[in-house]
């Protein structure tokens, strides 16, 4: 995707429209802090920062108030993941020492009203969708995709090791401490996020719960890791393509709005 346009009006209210990744180099400290904070929010399903994915449509910093607008690839993107992203944005921006009022607005989504209202009110997901959600499923959902991320990362590490001439046997027996620093760091970060140990002597390639994989099962395990990586990559491709189709590359937000021909509710069925 090409770079979105950026507009920084020379007024006391600083407003930026476009991807937050474009903020680097702009000498607005608070905007920079907002962008950095948002870069720490991942799409749990795609396992990438929302800033890289182009989901941040606009940031407005007005004194100590922050407003962030988010957009997603489709009108029907799963509401649970949408909630997690809006909620994570809200929390990370509220944690900035100077921030006062934080408003995160999800746009163009079938459940935007419930999500925006629920997150703003500090509700739990299940409260925002009465009768439609379990009480505690959301954290397990997040963990499930973090575990997929760990498997996919192992597949990437294997590719790099093979390129460096590592044999299958050496890979199968590798510990975190034996891996090149860059590969080890990625696995350590993911294991730590999942609450798993990440010592130098730990096996590098484990199941999604951190358990060692027996030598005879390693080949199958690494195939599973690879399939997971292919799946996550394919999803990224679809979502990025859909986002671009929906809003256009480099869209400034002016004509990306979906206009609905809403009918009276009585017209249904």
């Amino acid at each position, binding site marked *: 995707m090409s770079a979105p346009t950026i507009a920084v009006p020379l007024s006391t209210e600083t407003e930026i429209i476009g991807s937050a990744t474009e903020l680097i180099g702009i000498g607005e400290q608070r905007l920079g802090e907002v962008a950095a904070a948002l870069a720490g929010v991942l799409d749990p399903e795609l396992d990438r920062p929302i800033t890289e994915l182009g989901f941040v449509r606009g940031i407005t910093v007005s004194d100590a108030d922050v407003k962030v607008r988010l957009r997603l690839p489709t009108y*029907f993107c799963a509401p649970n993941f949408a909630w997690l992203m809006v909620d994570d944005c809200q929390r990370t921006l509220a944690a900035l020492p100077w921030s006062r009022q934080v408003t995160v607005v999800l746009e163009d989504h079938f459940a935007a009203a419930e999500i925006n209202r629920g997150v703003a009110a500090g509700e739990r997901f299940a409260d925002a969708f009465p009768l439609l959600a379990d009480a505690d499923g959301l954290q397990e959902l997040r963990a499930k995709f973090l575990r997929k991320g760990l498997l996919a990362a192992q597949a990437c590490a294997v590719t790099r090791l093979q390129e460096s001439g590592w044999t299958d046997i050496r890979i199968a027996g590798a510990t975190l401490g034996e891996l090149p620093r860059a590969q080890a760091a990625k696995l350590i970060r993911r294991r730590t996020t999942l609450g798993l140990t990440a010592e130098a002597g730990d096996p590098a390639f484990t199941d999604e719960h951190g358990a060692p994989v027996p030598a005879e099962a390693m080949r199958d395990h690494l195939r599973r890791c690879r399939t997971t990586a292919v799946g996550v990559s394919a999803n990224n491709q679809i979502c990025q393509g859909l986002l671009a189709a929906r809003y256009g590359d480099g869209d400034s937000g002016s004509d990306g709005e979906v206009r609905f021909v809403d009918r009276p509710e009585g017209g249904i069925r």
Partner: protein
Amino acid sequence: MYSKDGVDYFVVDGHIHFWDASEQNTANRYGEGFIRCFYDYQRNLSPAQWVWPLEKFRKYSEGDLVHDLFDTGYVDVGIFQPTYLSEFYTKGFNTTEDNGLIAEKHPGRLIVNGSWDPRAGEAGLGDLERLADRWRLRGVKLYTAEWRGDSKGWKLTDPMAQEYLAKCADLGIRNIHVHKGPTIWPLNRDAFDVADIDHAATAFPELNFIVEHSGLPRLEDFCWIATQEPNVYAGLSVVMPFIHSRPRYFAQVLGELLYWLDEDRISFGSDYAIWSPRWLIEQFVDFQIPEDLQSEYGVLTTDVKRKILGLNLARLYDIEVPERARIHAEPAAVGSVAVGSAAGGAGR
């Protein structure tokens, strides 16, 4: 039939629609959002000359369908997969009844599938019987993300769904196409989770479960299930158009499917009118796994392509395949496709 370099490819398009998302039929913002989402899929993954104006995309004609499938699209047999979406579209989005009106004008060329929803309860079982009788159903399309009143979806593991699957077995409806969509209940679980297909496939070994989009966006979960359940198939709708703009990803996804499922359980579907079969088929027949991925995934042979484009679905739906498009060298693999020829034609 598509022919290239002396090879005939019998084409069964396992996933086609005849929908109406005209403004007149669109009931609310959900229906509007749904068709816009479909349209973004077309715009995202199609060659530019295959992108329609939105107005045509919302409601195309019977003539368009016949032209795009049969006149120019190489399709020998198309299989309608209904999607009712009754909460979004006043007269339904894409119904068995509307599909059937076209199919009756093209005997032998179009197969009409039905649909059911376990939330219709006991009464729905009777409706399914009548639908099966009226259209001589051989398959159904299940859309687990369909909204119904306060409910936002269902699962194949729901107790009532078991009764419907048993009814399908009774009625000789062997092919169960499953489409995973978003917003399934409960909303905070993974909307695309395919675990319920594992359960159903084990409980009903006499039925074939064709998972549309090959389980995407849960490719990996689908692959584990399909490896263990011999009656689970991958439908390539949505996957196939990757071939144009993202050929490397197409190679990887197809490579994974071939590794976990084998070539007899992967089937072509254009998802018409999101994509048109002509360019998909032409590009697929010309396609090869990129060289640097061949050590991982091998190569696509002509016979693998023939199976995927038509022979596998012809087997599931008992479709007669012309002699020249059959594969005779591997009677064990596709013998039942070439009905009557597997024994006599072996070794030819």
